[in-house]
């Protein structure tokens, strides 16, 4: 090692050996061509870079900026207030309430999403091999491509306490009817059901893709090895699906913490009163929207968004740490 160092040509101050500099001298024409090539590359990247900058990065940076200021959409005066917005936040019981509501929403939604979509995917995989299996796949995916705002109106009807489908089903099963969107206990579960119905298709497709990557031979070998169906699933399929599951969990977490549209439309919408009854469905995304656009406290809403961002970031990092031990990448 030391020998090779002593034999190396002397380093110049800029870290390039004189020898290297001499051998890498490039003629102008070649340099011009290189520059042209990178121009073309940047040109190709430009649309994506511009769109992301204008619609993602600039708003995100601006959001951080205004969370430290007193800023109004119509007022021209911008005053630096330091951490005052965050201090105000911490004094708001509704803010903590919204965090708890969102956490509840997330804690229920993640397992429900993972197990329901995996279950449907497992059934569908069998169906796909049958004739017209594709129809079932499309049917499951269809809710995901319908606009939330429109379907949420239908769900409001389904959850109508008097003549809604939900209570009709409960009554026909001899179960007590529920108040659903009118009840502080059942409004959030009603919203969850809508959210689940809407997003499930996407996760089913992701799981189907994951399952397609589990070779059939592995299951056949396991079968010959004498493993039961349950054992094949728990010891072969589930471990091999872990990257997919991890992806779905991350996606479901982010979507849960950002849940907004179906809550907004189902619990009041533009007529006001969204997040009710008695704030029982006020998730933090909804609270941010109301703080900003209903009550005009944009700086405060920005501060909330920043907190929400940090929470999601922390959760994702924790999941990533856990996944290193639980997820098997081939």
């Amino acid at each position, binding site marked *: 090692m030391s020998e090779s160092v002593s034999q190396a040509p002397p380093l110049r101050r800029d870290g390039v050996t004189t020898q290297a500099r001499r051998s890498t001298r490039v003629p102008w024409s070649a340099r011009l061509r290189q520059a042209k090539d990178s121009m073309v590359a940047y040109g190709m990247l430009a649309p994506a870079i511009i769109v992301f900058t204008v619609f993602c990065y600039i708003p995100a940076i601006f959001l951080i900026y205004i969370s430290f200021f007193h800023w109004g959409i119509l007022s021209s005066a911008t005053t630096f207030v330091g951490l005052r917005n965050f201090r105000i936040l911490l004094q708001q019981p509704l803010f903590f309430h919204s965090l708890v509501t969102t956490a509840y929403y997330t804690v229920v939604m993640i397992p429900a999403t993972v197990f329901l979509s995996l279950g449907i995917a497992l059934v569908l995989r069998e169906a796909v091999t049958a004739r017209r299996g594709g129809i079932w796949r499309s049917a499951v995916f269809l809710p995901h491509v319908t606009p939330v705002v429109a379907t949420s109106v239908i769900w409001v009807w389904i959850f109508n306490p008097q003549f809604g489908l939900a209570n009709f089903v409960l009554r026909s099963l001899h179960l007590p009817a529920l108040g659903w969107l009118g009840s502080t206990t059942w409004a959030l579960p009603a919203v969850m059901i809508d959210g689940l119905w809407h997003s499930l298709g996407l996760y089913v497709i992701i799981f189907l893709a994951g399952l397609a990557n589990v070779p059939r031979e*592995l299951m*056949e*070998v396991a079968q*010959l090895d004498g*493993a039961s169906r349950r054992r094949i699933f728990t010891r072969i399929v589930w471990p091999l699906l872990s990257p997919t599951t991890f992806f779905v969990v991350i996606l479901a977490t982010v979507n849960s913490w950002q849940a907004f549209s179906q809550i907004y439309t189902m619990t009041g919408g533009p007529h006001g009163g969204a997040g009710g009854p008695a704030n029982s469905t006020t998730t933090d995304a909804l609270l941010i929207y109301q703080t900003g656009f209903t009550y005009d406290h944009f700086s405060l809403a920005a501060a909330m968004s920043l907190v929400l961002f940090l929470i999601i970031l922390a959760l994702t990092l924790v999941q990533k740490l856990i996944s290193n031990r639980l997820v098997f990448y081939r």
Partner: protein
Amino acid sequence: MAAIRLQGLLKSYGPEVVVNGVDLAIEEGEFVVLLGPSGCGKTTILRMIAGLEKVTEGEIWIGGKLMNSEPPDRRNIGMVFQNYALYPHMTVAGNLGFGLAARRRDRSSHGRTAGRTARLEERRRIQDTAKLLEIDHLLSRRPKELSGGQRQRVALGRAIVRKPAVFLMDEPLSNLDANLRDRMRLEIARLHQKLRITTVYVTHDQSEALTLADRIVVMHEGRIHQVGDAATVYDTPADTFVARFLGSPGMNLWTLPIEEAGDTVILGGSLRLPAALLPPPVKAGEMVTIGIRPEHFAIVSTRAGDPATAHGGHADHGESADDRCLAGEAVLSCHVDFLEHMGSHLLVHGSFGDGNPVIARLDAKAPVQRGGRIELAASAVRTHLFDAATGDRLARRAAGQQVGVLT
């Protein structure tokens, strides 16, 4: 160890029949190779024996038990797949032990100590199997950290660690490079000799079949064409399919009308056979299929009527084609279209009559030139006759002696 019997086995997917009435009895400890081109139904048969594919019709007996409706795990079968199908998330030891553990779970309801002894026994068996296959230093590795040959060994080990009654292999060597394939082939032969487990081996590679098999089952389009040991299927192919499929290159086959029928029979203008070879009555105009393997030809002369240095056992100067024919040889004069030098030998691609192709495998130093004519001869006992209509083998008339030739 167990004998396998397939009776009237049939498999169809809708209207498409993949396996069409297969009858086969495999004895205990026998090594049987199912050989055929891809799509001939050999893998489907293997999967039906394993229970991975439902039987449409017919019966599968293993060890004297009807297995048609038994699930795969009840058939006591070890199987090696073409792509190894190792559990990628388990170590080599985990791969070997998975089946043992699964079976232990099944039996369960033993006491704790019984469970522990079972686990110890499993560990011992994994060790023994690993040692047998020389993979005991790899037990803690994952499949992706192994080379192709090592993976193949693990796949073999996983199949034998449970001591199955029957061993099924589906083209196990086709993913290996040529060198490794030869080594693993030997390994499999050695393993079979040691364990003597009834083995059904599927391949489209005839060299694997010829070297490994106690008996070869040649299949085509869902049917068995011939069952026999390597020498039988090679020396006396049951029909034109087997004749063409085995050997590389396969047998020369010509379906031609008899032009002249005397003591020697002439076909295609320049193929002469001793009349005694053909089943009587030999009449002009009758169609007959003749087969001669490329490696059974010997060169007689490089130009018709002009004797050259002869090669092979048939060297004989100045003899006319008719004389040779009467002495019990098939003689053929053909045009040399092109040559392939294969190092150890020379492949001559020629033609005679109305463009009937001939391939002859000659000594690398044979004096043959492109564009010239050569006269080839093959012993009558190595000349095969087939029914021109059905392609089935025709019994030769009393073969050798009568024609004056010995094997």
